[in-house]
């Protein structure tokens, strides 16, 4: 975990005081809604269909057990007993009163949490691999660079009013768990021919109304140049990004219209002016940041302890969970445990206050007090001793936190949709709930294999539908909910935008269509190991289209 310093704490406390004053002036009528709206959005407060929503930043998805307990407290004290983990590793509360917002933020500030830059046209929460620091396949810990970027971009005066919001994601692993190719700026830590570690820089990725995969504009950027180069990108965007049309204001449109080469040339021109300036990183500064990350005091343990092998043999349910939710750790004798927040029939990504408290306690007992949030809306205990896995599983089971469906068909990403969101055209959560019921048989889900279903309730694509292996987009037709289905999208290192299957279908038909698509895949795959997304890549969507629409 990263330990914030006094500067961070003072900043957060001052922000609470400032917002308390702003809320008070709004409630008294001194501020109009037009004047107040931009202020509340700067503090992560949205007005949704039935209530205010507070989006809390979880920088690079890392939470301490104390922070998780505070989230549970907020859920109980100010909300309705639950919260929603989002696709940007944040947490949203759906029912907090504006009158109580300052007290909520003051309670969060006690554990260094806040809601700054979770909304507005600024640099948003920096996201990264939820396995950062423990993944067996990473070059180095990307959180250090996410933290460097967090410090740089927090309340940056030049970039507080960009043309639109700006999202940065970073990964240091070969397998991209952070969806960096669909971010405004994606950073991949790579090694060059000389063996030095730096960044491959992608720009102009994004989903929403006009989806694009990011383009590489710098194959290798030395570490010292990360801030100057990102600043050059932001400056070019700030200067040339469109402010006249909200639908064309994201950097992806600028990169698309200029072309990646021309955009890169503009960045290089700007960068030449600043690359050796104050933001060129001194290795000592980076070392100071790195030193504030506390790494666990791992015990010397052996991989695959005999008791674990015995338990695996004796209990098929435990074995299924081990195979599904437990991954290799870079340290011998340890494991990375993903906690599914996708129990069958439940809203994806939601956790009750009781579950948050339970996860906090389990993190203290089994994971050095550390928890991560992944963009797939699940949680992670990053440092679990393999010898503790059976005990942990039993305790997770008791809190409905051990559904063995990670990366399977019922591990659905879904936005809040029309049940909460003022922008949505159609519901997402009930669609996800119905699909999990259809695929509740874990043996069937395992037979199907890795399959990501992503659902968005409108074109803004908070549910990342474009990059779902099966993407579902809610639209409105004459007052009725319809859903467009896309196939073959993916968010990893082979990121791709899905292809439309055919005409949109009614709400009541979505689960049937998905079942037909999955049944077709099982018939059409060449072997069980061929993933759904690879079958679609091999044969296209036509065979699926014939199957789905012939029956309707």
């Amino acid at each position, binding site marked *: 975990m990263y330990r914030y310093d006094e500067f961070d704490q003072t900043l957060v406390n001052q922000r609470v005081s400032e917002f308390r004053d702003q809320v008070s002036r709004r409630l008294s009528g001194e501020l109009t809604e037009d004047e107040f709206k931009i202020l509340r959005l700067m503090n992560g407060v949205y*007005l949704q269909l*039935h209530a205010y929503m507070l989006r809390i930043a979880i920088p690079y998805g890392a939470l301490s057990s104390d922070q998780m307990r505070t989230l549970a407290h907020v859920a109980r004290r100010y909300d309705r007993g639950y919260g929603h983990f989002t696709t940007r590793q944040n947490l949203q509360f759906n029912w907090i009163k*504006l009158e109580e917002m300052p007290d909520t933020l003051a309670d969060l500030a006690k554990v260094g949490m806040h809601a700054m830059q979770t909304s507005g046209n600024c640099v948003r929460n920096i996201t990264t691999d939820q396995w950062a620091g423990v993944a067996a396949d990473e070059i180095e810990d990307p959180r250090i660079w996410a933290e460097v970027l967090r410090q740089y971009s927090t309340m940056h005066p030049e970039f507080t009013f960009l043309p639109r919001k700006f999202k940065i994601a970073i990964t240091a692993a070969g397998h991209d768990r952070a969806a960096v190719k669909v971010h405004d700026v994606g950073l991949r830590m790579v090694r060059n021919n000389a063996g030095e570690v730096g960044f491959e820089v992608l720009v102009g990725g994004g989903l929403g109304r006009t989806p694009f995969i990011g383009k590489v504009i710098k194959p290798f950027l030395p570490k010292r140049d990360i801030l100057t180069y990102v600043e050059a990108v932001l400056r070019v965007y700030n200067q040339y990004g469109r402010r006249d049309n909200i639908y064309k204001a994201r950097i992806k449109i600028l990169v698309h219209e200029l072309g990646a080469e021309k955009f890169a040339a503009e960045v290089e021109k700007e960068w030449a002016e600043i690359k050796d300036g104050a933001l060129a990183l001194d290795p000592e500064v980076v070392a100071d940041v790195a030193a504030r990350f506390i790494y666990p005091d791992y015990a010397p343990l052996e991989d695959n302890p005999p008791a674990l092998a015995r338990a695996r043999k004796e209990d098929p349910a435990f074995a299924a969970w081990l195979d599904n939710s437990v991954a290799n750790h870079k340290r011998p004798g340890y494991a990375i445990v993903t906690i599914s927040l996708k129990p069958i029939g439940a809203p994806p990504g939601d956790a009750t206050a009781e579950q948050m408290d339970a996860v906090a306690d389990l993190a203290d007992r089994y994971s050095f007090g550390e928890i991560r949030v992944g963009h797939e809306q699940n949680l992670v205990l990053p440092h679990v001793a393999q010898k503790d896995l059976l005990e942990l599983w039993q305790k997770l089971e008791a809190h409905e936190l051990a559904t063995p469906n990670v990366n399977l068909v019922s591990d659905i990403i879904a936005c809040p949709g029309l049940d909460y969101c003022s922008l949505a055209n159609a519901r997402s959560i009930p669609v996800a709930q119905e699909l999990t019921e259809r695929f509740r048989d874990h043996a069937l889900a395992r037979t199907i294999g890795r399959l990501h279903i992503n659902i968005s309730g409108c074109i803004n694509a908070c549910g990342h539908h474009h990059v779902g292996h099966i993407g579902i987009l809610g639209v409105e037709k004459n007052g009725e909910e319809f859903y467009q289905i896309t196939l073959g999208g993916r968010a990893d290192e082979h990121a791709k935008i899905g292809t439309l299957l055919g005409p949109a279908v009614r709400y009541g038909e979505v689960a049937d269509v998905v079942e037909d698509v999955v049944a077709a895949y099982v018939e059409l795959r060449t072997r069980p190991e061929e993933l759904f997304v690879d079958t679609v890549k091999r044969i296209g969507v036509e065979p699926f289209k014939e199957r789905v629409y012939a029956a309707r």
Partner: protein
Amino acid sequence: MTSPHEQKKRKVNGSVVVTANRLGDGAVVYRTVNDDWTTDLASAAVVAAPAAAILLQRAEADGVRAVGPYIAPVELAADNRVLPGNLRERIRLAGPTFTLPGALSA
């Protein structure tokens, strides 16, 4: 389920109410004939154009108690009960369409 921003551009047809969110807690409220706000749809002023435009104008002038007023369709049941006119408004009135997680969801 067009968003209120889009609904504003639409021609007003049939019976409508003016609705908004209460400033202090965001609760869904409806404009009454007495220039007040109520959480009870049955107590809302049900009007037709052009009265809707006037009702909205007066609601917009009241910028402290409620936020973002707009015109929303309603239907009148056979027994004269006032019902929300589309799914978005049904959800605003009754809450999410699934059981909420947590024990405090009442």
